[in-house]
């Protein structure tokens, strides 16, 4: 199934574009999605997305599926569906 990854800031610079289409097996979860990202972009993600020591997602990084933060869905076990948009936001502030 096709999922759109939407990134900004430093994470966008690593991935190379704001919107990236990713092909994942049916019934993939956010955890699977992040595993795919780690395999595809590797260590380059570590300063923007993963703690290199623990492998966990960095604090204050937000992951949204169709605009909703995964903390209000099923977290890493949130199931993805064809056409979903995953937004990954690094810490940003200011107005």
């Amino acid at each position, binding site marked *: 199934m096709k999922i759109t990854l*939407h*990134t*900004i*800031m*430093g994470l*966008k610079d690593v991935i190379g574009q*704001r919107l990236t289409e990713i092909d994942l097996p049916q019934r993939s979860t956010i955890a699977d999605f992040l595993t795919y990202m780690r395999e595809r972009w590797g260590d380059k993600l570590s300063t923007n997305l993963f703690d290199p020591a623990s492998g966990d997602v*960095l*604090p*204050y990084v*937000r992951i*949204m599926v*169709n*605009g*909703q*933060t995964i*903390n*209000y869905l099923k977290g890493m076990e949130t199931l993805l569906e064809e056409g979903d*948009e995953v*937004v990954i*936001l*690094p*810490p*940003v*502030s*200011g*107005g």
Partner: protein
Amino acid sequence: MYSGGYAGKILRINLSNKTSREEPLAEEMARDFIGGAGFGIKHLFDEVRPGIDPLGPDNKLVFAPGPFTGAGVPCASRMAVTGKSPLTGAVGMALSGGEFPTEMKFAGWDAIIIEGKADKPTYVAITGKVVRFHDADCSWGTLTSDCQQIIKNELRDQNVRVCCIGPAGEHLSKIACMINERRAVGRKGLGAVMGSKNLKAIAIRGTDSVAIASQEKFKIAHAAMLKAFKDSPVLYPEFSHHGTPMVTDLTGAMGVLPAKNWSATGEFVPVEGIGKDAQATRKVGKEHCHDCPVACSQLKVAKTGEYAGILTEGPDFETVYSFGSGVGIDEVDPIIAADRLADELGLDSISSGVTISFAMELFEKGILTLDETDGIDLRFGNDEAMMKVLRKMAFRDGLGDLLADGSLAAAKRIGKGAEKYAMQIKGLELPGYDVRGLKAHGLGFATSYTGADHCRGYAFQEVFGVPIPWEVDRFAIEGKGKLTIWNQDIRTVTLDCAPMCAFLLDMAVPATACQNMARLMEAVTGLSFTPEEIQKVGERVNNLAKAFNLREGFTRADDTLPERLMNEPLKAGASKGQVISREDLDTMLDEYYSLRGWDIKTGMPTRAKLTDLGLAYVADALRL
């Protein structure tokens, strides 16, 4: 008694009879209201009678920095300017940074109160305790950068700091601002109040320093702040390099970057053309306020077409929205040019951009015709039209006269159902966060005592995901009353009364804002506060501002949102389908009023609440 931070003196200037006098700053005032907006709103409530004309001689302007300004506290070269807003009729309070606030403290003043009206165009020059009134013959009619230079030359002092108005303020545009250097006292039309007093500028020069109560405690407090700055994952790594325009990318990704007068949020998302990366291609340098190690301000130069070579400080995110996505523009150079032009004319860049986007929507819908727009093709995306209309607004020329007092006033003159396209609350145009996908922002803007104000209704938890004081679902209605009160009270005391830069709270000390401020107050002023007492100052100031508005006739009905935001769900993007219905807003308002200790039907604070805050005299004034 305080033993540092404060100069201990307030300067009262009467323009009608060209006199000035010094008044002592009482300890009770310092303790209960801290400074900045606290001082301004206290003077406003106590001294400005209900129902006065905001553009008449009875209105006042209170310029107030705070105890940390000039004391070496990072990010504290800030001041609040307070008066009755001609745009909203409510409390008008706007903040500014730069060097002027610090110069006020070096000149020995905790606040300057401007009263009356000069009989002809005038500027006031303050050198320490000496106040002189000068004819503004040479500077009246000038753009703001020229005005500042003329006054510096006349005073033969290139280091004097000048806060002035441009043509918009002189022509009493109700969305006129003040400018000091390239920084604005931006919103609520306070530039028109200055213009109504025939006051072109205040020039100030000081040679004193600000005393510190305890150098030892100050070193500890200062080091704690700098450590928080360094520990922030955002402040130096990102914000110091990119400034606020990076929020364009964030709000675009979240589907809350307002577009085309809020009719196309999520559909028209011109981040590639106007976002962080596009802005970076125009960057030529940085600026910083006094004692700021962050230097978020970006100097940019436009490169293309007729805008090539125009420099501006900014544009900040709000201006990227108001002169960019809001008016359907998808490239950076027109925004740079419009930002500079608005500053030079002395127009609030948010209100002027949103008012133009309002007119553009009316034009596209046929409610305004070419005859009524002086022949200007006012379609969304027409940057040349935007520039023309900006100039016309400042000089009240033709269509500009219709738009010079903001979108609500224009809508009332136009009729034909135009009011529902005016994106404003209490008359103040909305900032760049589409509240349909950020519910606490909706409540925050609706209940802000100044109207739809980016400095009052902000909920960084929703936009930036910071889980302080708790984690927040941006789409949820429940709990937003409690969150809004927390945000308003803490931001009021730390950012408006201290006053300190908002980015400090959002990026460096969100979890310890009140502890940080209590520590600084003790170190700088010698006054001891608990964090809870600090927060209570914020609550006191918000209640006093609310009381001022109620006395002016505001009711619960004024704490509302534009019709579009309650009736039109977002059609695309990451917030698709979101809306704040009338019922949703009422649910949030009920929670908010109830937890505030205000009457749910009227929004009136109870006598018990006001007494608890030390404001029993306000209850008397409101006849509670």
